[in-house]
């Protein structure tokens, strides 16, 4: 471990960190935009949920590298080629959490809202979605952390990320670079996670000091095996 390597290479560490953060955050956010309507549909039409869940799991089982290779033909060697697969992978965590979050709204609350004259749409926007936020954010945390870790694979097709340090370190037989890449990945994941925990506290002041039912998270296989 050569500590002096870090300050000397600050100018390359910083841009790679920003690029990896982008690849870690954008896919879960797009995934969220997709998961909310899909989750709502799955709650409204119960029969829809099992096939959607199977499809999301099947997509998650696809090797990311294979997806990159297929996508290169359409989206070239740019960020999009990495963002699309990572977005699809995030659905496997986010859709179940949106569904569970919406289902966590108790029947009396739902019934009271209806009986007070909420239309279905209004009930969804003003009651059900706000109450689902803690469970949805729990899913988002898993999706973001896994996305940050998976993003390094983008380097294999030349999309800049922490993957650069692993490949470069391996080729030059220079372990320091690999350790730095690992440490940065963990650090970035922790920071993003903290931001999400903070935003949950801001979005759900009502949940403070209140025991929320433990979110039935459905994490896929550990991202590290990829």
């Amino acid at each position: 471990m050569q500590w002096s390597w870090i300050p000397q290479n600050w100018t390359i560490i910083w841009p790679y960190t920003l690029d990896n953060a982008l690849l870690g955050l954008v896919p879960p956010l797009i995934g969220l935009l997709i998961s909310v309507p899909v989750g709502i549909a799955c709650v409204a039409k119960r029969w829809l949920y099992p096939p959607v869940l199977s499809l999301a799991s099947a997509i998650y089982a696809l090797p990311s590298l294979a997806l990159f290779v297929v996508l290169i033909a359409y989206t070239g060697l740019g960020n999009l080629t990495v963002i699309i697969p990572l977005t699809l992978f995030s659905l496997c965590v986010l859709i179940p959490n949106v569904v569970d979050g919406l289902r966590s709204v108790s029947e009396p609350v739902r019934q009271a809202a209806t009986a007070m004259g909420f239309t279905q749409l209004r009930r969804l926007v003003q009651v059900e979605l706000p109450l689902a936020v803690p469970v949805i954010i729990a899913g988002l945390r898993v999706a973001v952390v896994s996305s940050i870790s998976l993003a390094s694979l983008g380097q294999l097709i030349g999309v800049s990320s922490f993957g650069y340090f692993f490949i470069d370190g391996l080729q030059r037989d220079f372990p320091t670079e690999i350790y730095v890449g690992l440490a940065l990945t963990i650090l970035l994941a922790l920071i993003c996670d903290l931001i999400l925990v903070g935003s949950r506290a801001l979005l759900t002041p009502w949940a403070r000091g209140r025991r929320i039912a433990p979110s039935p998270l459905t994490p896929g296989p550990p991202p590290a095996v990829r």
Partner: protein
Amino acid sequence: MITFETVTKRYPDGTVAVDALDLAIPDGKIMVLVGPSGCGKTTSLRMINRLVEPTAGRVLLDGENVADVDPSRLRRGIGYVIQQTGLFPHRTVEDNIATVPLLNGWNKRRARDRAHELMDLVGLEQATMARRYPHQLSGGQQQRVGVARALAADPPVLLMDEPFSAVDPIVRAALQDELIRLQAELHKTVVLVTHDVEEAIKVGDLVAVFRPGGHLAQVDTPERLLGAPVDDYVRDFVGFDRGIRRLSFFPAAGLDLDTDTVLPATTTIADAIAAAKQAGQTWLLVVDAAGRPLGWAAAADLESAPAGAALAAVELASVGHTFRPDADSLRAALDATILSRTERAVAVDDHGQVIGTTSYERLRDAIRAAEDAADRRTGDRSADRPRQAAGGAR
């Protein structure tokens, strides 16, 4: 006026929850639907605000079929309170209460002002409660918020589904009293569902007793339900001590009171003995200068006391419970009499001044007279009671 016209609810699996129900609920009254679980009372309630749609028949609200009204608009004019409160966990107390005004397009400030008025009305302290979330309240407080929320848009109709079943008996009694007090002020048309016949008799102006299978057994005033149950089912349902409970509905004002055995503490023993003899009574009630009761003097004890002394000098038995003929029922008077060692109870006015005393004999006469009067009303019932109150099973 809410009218059920041969309303039936049959579920796809063939279960009949409500069977050809005819019921009219008059304006400004508390109508309690009571019965064992599975008798269709909650289903009936939910057909009023269209949470459940009838399979056959019509539910009319002020002559208009509710099925013809847009559900959201209909529901904003009907308050709804449920056992589990259904408060929004993510909204503060004031915002929970402001829900329907906000839905009706009021601005936030006006809706909150309204919420604060309602907090006062239902006895929730604004300063400490307004900004709390529901989970920070006790069960009784949550239910008060639920009632306030239902009343926020001043709906003419209030539906309550087992509103007080989830709280402990002491809180429940307080909430029931609160409902009676609110209703005296607001005159809503209230439909309340409960499985607790005591609650039905306590809060109801009218009580509809349901049988299993969604049939009505009897619709009547609580007093009539206790005094003249139509059949064994209703008799069993209202319970075994209905004779005593019925006395709650007879005012104690009709009671003849003894006044010649009430003596000021300054009366001499000799005069007191004379008074007891003349009245033929064994106990004398001694009162102070302001007319408030001090205690009972036993006539037998007076003989051994010096004839010239004042009544204040003898040992007095405790007054015990008193009752107010202007406010209490014969049940309260009877209760006070039973609890008294002297087999007599003291009637006082609202200042606590003694009006007179009563005994078992006088109570017996008053009870008999009240029952006779009630039974005479029964005879005229078909003539002068509105058809809907008679209701009936089909």
